[in-house]
């Protein structure tokens, strides 16, 4: 057991920031349709993100954490999984949720405040509830992966977390469990440079992927704005997990283009030049340019993707606006398998006041 694997070096970049590449598409093991699908999903994701931001500004969502800038990291990784693979997200994985098939309107229940972060069926969707408390979901993912291994099921579990979350004790305990139980899990860190207002340099003194070595499994760092690099690294990690070779830590280096949430004022703590610099590394621009250069898509195809995304975003807006909180009596329905007598009494109490007011 006492052996560790050296991490594969520095960030790999397949399409360069300028949209060029020395890699032939074929070498990537992705069909042209899949290469196009990645672009479509990134465009869709960003459009949905924009729609959510708009919904928030219109007062239709309470607060919303944009993933702008992280489309390649989320789409590239989620796209590498099979339908049955299970994702444990944080609060910023709306893009991954869309890729994995979660109903985006129900997903937004959380941000609208009509329910907590898991009213979609997590089991059916193979997508855990939105997880707020940093790093705690990693242990859930590892436990789930342990379960899949016990069952001998060829299912991969992927946990998303941020650079900030990697400072929590739960990160460590879960990584070590993953190593000790050789759990088929992918530990996917989106290092977007910030934990709210705290830059990476004040959160840690070494790159996150290096920690893997201390646990005894591979750690890789990828250019998180390179959808193909992310996809390849995730696929490799998923294959490793599926074939019984245990966990992999992936550090996808990306950038949080927006403020922490729509409530946050990032100008208080970061320089707009840093944001501008990263804007030039925009993951969608880069990838689209490369696909166009490689003649894998035409401008017309891209235009259609954008139109379709807008349509989906419109549906999202309309659907979201229709979301209503359930009656307050429902608060007593889901805490236990069946509500104990005291809870039923309390349910009557809330009802008395709620109905009284309504009447």
């Amino acid at each position: 057991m006492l052996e560790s694997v050296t991490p594969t070096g520095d960030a790999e970049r397949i399409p360069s920031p300028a949209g060029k590449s020395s890699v032939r598409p074929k070498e990537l093991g992705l069909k042209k349709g899949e290469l196009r699908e990645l672009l479509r999903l990134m465009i869709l994701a960003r459009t949905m993100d924009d729609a959510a931001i708009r919904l928030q500004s219109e007062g239709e969502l309470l607060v919303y954490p944009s993933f702008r800038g992280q489309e390649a990291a989320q789409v590239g990784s989620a796209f590498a999984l099979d339908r049955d693979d299970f994702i444990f997200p944080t609060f910023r994985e709306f893009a991954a949720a869309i890729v994995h098939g979660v109903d985006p309107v129900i997903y937004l229940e959380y941000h609208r405040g009509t329910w907590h972060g898991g009213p979609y069926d997590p089991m059916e969707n193979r997508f855990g509830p939105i997880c707020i408390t940093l790093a705690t979901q990693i242990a859930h993912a590892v436990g789930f992966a342990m379960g899949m291994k016990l069952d001998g099921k060829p299912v991969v579990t992927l946990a998303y977390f941020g650079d900030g979350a990697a400072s929590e004790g739960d990160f460590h305990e879960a990584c070590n469990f993953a190593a000790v139980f050789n759990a088929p899990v992918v530990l996917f860190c989106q290092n977007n440079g910030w934990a709210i207002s705290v830059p990476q340099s004040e959160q840690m003194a070494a790159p996150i992927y290096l920690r893997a070595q201390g646990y005894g499994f591979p750690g890789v760092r990828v250019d998180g704005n390179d959808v193909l690099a992310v996809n390849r690294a995730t696929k490799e990690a998923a294959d490793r997990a599926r074939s019984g070779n245990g966990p992999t830590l992936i550090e996808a280096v990306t950038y949080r283009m927006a403020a922490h949430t729509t409530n946050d004022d990032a100008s208080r703590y970061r320089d707009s030049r840093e944001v501008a610099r990263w804007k030039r590394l925009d993951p969608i621009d880069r990838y689209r340019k490369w696909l166009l250069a490689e003649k894998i898509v035409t401008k017309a195809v891209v235009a259609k993707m954008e139109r379709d995304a807008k349509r989906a975003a419109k549906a999202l807006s309309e659907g979201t606006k229709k979301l209503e909180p359930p009656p307050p009596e429902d608060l007593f329905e889901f805490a236990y398998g069946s509500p104990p007598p005291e809870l039923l009494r309390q349910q009557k109490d809330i009802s008395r006041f709620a109905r009284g007011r309504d009447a």
Partner: protein
Amino acid sequence: MPEFTMSKAINRALAHELKRDPRMLVFGEDVGKLGGIFRVTDGLQKRFGKKRVFDTPSAEAAIAGSALGLALAGWHPVAEMQFDGFSYPALDQVISHVARYKNRTKGVVSLPLVIRMPCGGGLRGKEHHAESPETYYAHTPGLKVLCPSGALDAYELMQQAIRDPDPVIVLEPKRLYGVAEKGQLGKGALPMGIARTVRDGREATIVTYGGMVPRAVEAAEQAEAQGISAQVLDLRSLAPLDIEGLRDAVRATGRAVVVHEAPKTLGLGAEIAARIMEECFDRLQTPVVRVTGYDTPYPPPLLEDPWFPTVERIADAVTRVVRT
């Protein structure tokens, strides 16, 4: 008539359920070869294999968190926290996730899992080894909390906890682990959530649970010698509370003493006293008296005797509520 210590009875319950339910898992620190500090899991790994009964690294948050994940994966985890005082590193996972996952998912996901741990004093345990953490758990909506008061009931409660669809915390009074009870395991079960009258009495009700039940009975016997008839009610379930059972008992006697090992302030006795007032006000002859651990950190082992409720303190309280 066979005889079982509480640790043996719980061991039997775990074995019985492991056999019945092929999805059940037992894990935690030192539960495998060692069989647990108190031998509650003795022999289980040997009998059911390393796949289903296994040791973990010393990492309580991950024990609770991975139990949650395993439950999602359709397994049925029964996780051990080695001591009451070492369950605190897992409190965030328990409060923020285990207790709420079902609610968060609008009822779609159930978490049939058990977290069991020794609790309370009585064995001259050192710091962190003699905690009574029930308030932390019982105050947290979404959890059920059980606490047996003897071997036979421990067997039943453990089985019920394992078969329950919700996450259940089982607190095992370590002062009772070595105490033997005569009887058949698995006979005459009371349902989960129902308090049990351990001893009948007319003038006062001693409400208690877990490790204080034998002591309450002893105090009731002492009181009887002085001509006072005291009932003893064993709550068994600390969350949810059997409010009806509590009400019926205290309405009949009109006087109550609540006994527990945890510190007084916001110990379970606070809730019980408040409930008794709410439910029995018109019948209450005297205020409910709480006989509890004191509001200090747990005492050093050689001072635990006067710190935890003694038979003497309980009997004194019973006399006070009846005679004043």
